[in-house]
């Protein structure tokens, strides 16, 4: 009995050390939220391997006082979505790079930097900052998100009131081997408005990011994100979304490389006839160091006639590990819910592993919910079919990997963005021909 107690003490001490390192804000519209978040973080404590929610993923490198160094990685490839006409905002190791960014004022949407919003009285942001994060803490604790709300150094606050003319593109750059970046973004899509948000690039040696997205009645939000290709990064990201009546939320993430990536997505469907889709494609090759990728998703249906989809695909080789924890919670009264969840892994060798925990919890009787999880190797019959037409084995394997990932990529509505993602996948596969 002594051992667990000692560990708890260690956790408390580590939590206290983090709290001590977070500056307590005196003023500004986020001050109250930060103070509240810090108190919640203190009550929850840092996540540990013994927590059920962290059973498959060791958070110690995310919570260590010292940042585990991550070598800089020059992919030597063109900026993803670089040719897409967008409002580009650049963060280098978590710090805004005004010189490399477009002028937010000229964007046609309201964009304010969190670090500059400090004293300003931005009502909509005050109603959002830390609010969805706090709501997302039940029924499962997400201490790293609370820590983020308390300690975020910067981020963007974006509000759209109409159809945004062009996407907002958050570009992350990593230039310090020991950077520890904490960014917090708030996005408000007002009634009937529409926004596409792009996120690309390696952000820091260690990255803690929270994005709160509030989509009002009839609003539409599209999110396409590419993480990588820095091999040694550690990242914990959270998306907290609330979708109102008749609105649409769509998020897609491509993850390549990275020692540890935990992407949590918490969606609250709060209005009738709304739709929320979250998808991910991850490519992990353990031969360049550890690869551990964790998608943790929690979708709550709390309205009538809503649809949700979770589509997660992972391609793993050379000792890579993939994790999926996904839940659909249908609250009482959320009738006519259509919930769907699929998590699949394609193991390209026998050294890799996929750990999945799909969950459904339903308190309404007129719903349609399904979930599935599979893990398997390349389909030999399909491989033979392609080869019998003259396609070489490596090329045929690459085609089958793309085939496997297709369902996830189809969740990207914009064909041009989807095409660029496929291009990156093809490049990744081409580099790994054996």
């Amino acid at each position, binding site marked *: 009995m002594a051992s667990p107690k000692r560990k708890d003490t260690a956790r408390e001490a580590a939590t206290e050390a983090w709290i001590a390192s977070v500056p307590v804000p005196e003023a500004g519209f986020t001050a109250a939220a930060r103070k509240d978040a810090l108190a919640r973080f203190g009550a929850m404590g840092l996540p540990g391997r013994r927590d059920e929610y962290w059973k498959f993923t060791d958070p110690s490198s995310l919570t260590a006082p010292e940042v585990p160094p991550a070598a800089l990685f020059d992919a030597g490839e063109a900026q993803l979505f670089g040719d897409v006409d967008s409002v580009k905002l650049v963060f280098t190791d978590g710090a805004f790079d005004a010189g490399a960014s477009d002028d937010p004022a000229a964007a046609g949407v309201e964009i304010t930097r969190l670090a500059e919003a400090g004293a300003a009285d931005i009502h909509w942001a005050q109603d959002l900052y830390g609010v969805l994060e706090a709501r997302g803490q039940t029924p499962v604790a997400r201490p790293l998100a609370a820590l983020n709300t308390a300690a975020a150094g910067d981020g963007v606050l974006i509000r759209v009131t109409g159809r945004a003319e062009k996407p907002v593109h958050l570009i992350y750059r990593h230039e310090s081997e020991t950077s520890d970046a904490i960014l917090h973004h708030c996005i408000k899509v007002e009634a009937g408005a529409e926004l596409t948000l792009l996120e690309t690039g390696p952000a820091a040696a260690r990255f803690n990011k929270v994005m709160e997205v509030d989509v009002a009645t009839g609003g539409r939000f599209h999110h396409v994100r590419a993480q990588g290709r820095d091999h040694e990064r550690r990242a914990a990201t959270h998306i907290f979304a609330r979708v109102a009546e008749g609105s649409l939320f769509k998020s897609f993430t491509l993850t390549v490389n990275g020692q540890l990536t935990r992407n949590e997505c918490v969606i609250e469907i709060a209005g009738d006839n709304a739709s929320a889709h979250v998808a991910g494609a991850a490519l992990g090759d353990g031969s360049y160091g550890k690869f551990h990728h964790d998608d943790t998703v929690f979708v709550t249906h709390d309205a009538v006639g809503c649809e949700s989809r979770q589509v997660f695909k992972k391609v793993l080789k050379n000792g890579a590990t993939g994790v999926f924890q996904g839940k659909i919670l249908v609250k009482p009264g959320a009738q006519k819910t259509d919930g769907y969840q699929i998590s699949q892994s394609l193991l390209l060798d026998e050294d890799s592993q996929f750990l999945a925990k799909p969950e459904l919890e339903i308190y309404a009787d007129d719903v349609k919910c399904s979930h599935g999880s599979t893990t398997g190797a390349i389909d030999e019959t399909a491989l033979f079919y392609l*080869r019998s*037409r*003259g*396609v*070489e*084995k490596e*090329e*045929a394997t690459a085609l089958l990997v793309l085939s496997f990932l*297709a369902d996830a990529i189809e969740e990207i509505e914009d064909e041009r963005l989807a095409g660029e993602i496929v291009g990156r996948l093809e490049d990744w596969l081409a580099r790994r021909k054996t």
Partner: protein
Amino acid sequence: MLEIKNLNVKLEEEDKQILKGVDLTVEAGKVHAIMGPNGSGKSTLSYVLSGRDGYEVMDGSATLDGEDILEMEPEERAAAGLFLAFQYPVEIPGVGNMTFLRSALNAQRKARGESEVSAGDFLKLVREKAKTLKIDAEMLKRPVNVGFSGGEKKRNEILQMAVLEPTMCILDETDSGLDVDAMKLVADGVNALRDPRRAFLVITHYQRLLDHIQPDVVHIMADGRIVKTGGPELALEVEKNGYADILAEIA
């Protein structure tokens, strides 16, 4: 063109011999048909020739234009001119029919030391071939065989054959699952490819496909070997009397 000598093959996983000394020679420009009851080894022969995993060649040889194909990878056999039209064409979601066909054609050309076909030329080529098989542009855009009807899948196989222009075509029960109209369309596609430099090996249960694709030679296969060889009249005999008579005759 295709020369098979004393081919003995067993399943890799279990100690079960399927082919027990197949001897068969198919000359350029000819259409040979192989008929036989279920389990006689017809499909196994097609798989072994095209290089599918799971079989072990115990004895014998198979050469295409004098080259030993049994040692080759499946893609090398394809580049050498061999083509197998599958009994059950495989669905490959997320890979466009055109992408697949172009990868296949260019891979074969590359393997033969030829230059790749440009996107424009390829499109023209496929459209022209597709038209005669009544394959519309929509079907070409869809992922490989996904959502295709039985007939569409088989037509797609023949389209691949028409585009890749192999010299030795093996059709494995191409008539299975087809209604009369679909079968006729497929047969027309095959007949259009008949050429003095090209040979066909048509594997089928029934004579009806051979009404549309007239064979020069008909072989009866039973228990892993060719037990009788004759002209087109042999197929008619099977149609009329079944396999029992022939098998009894040779027993």
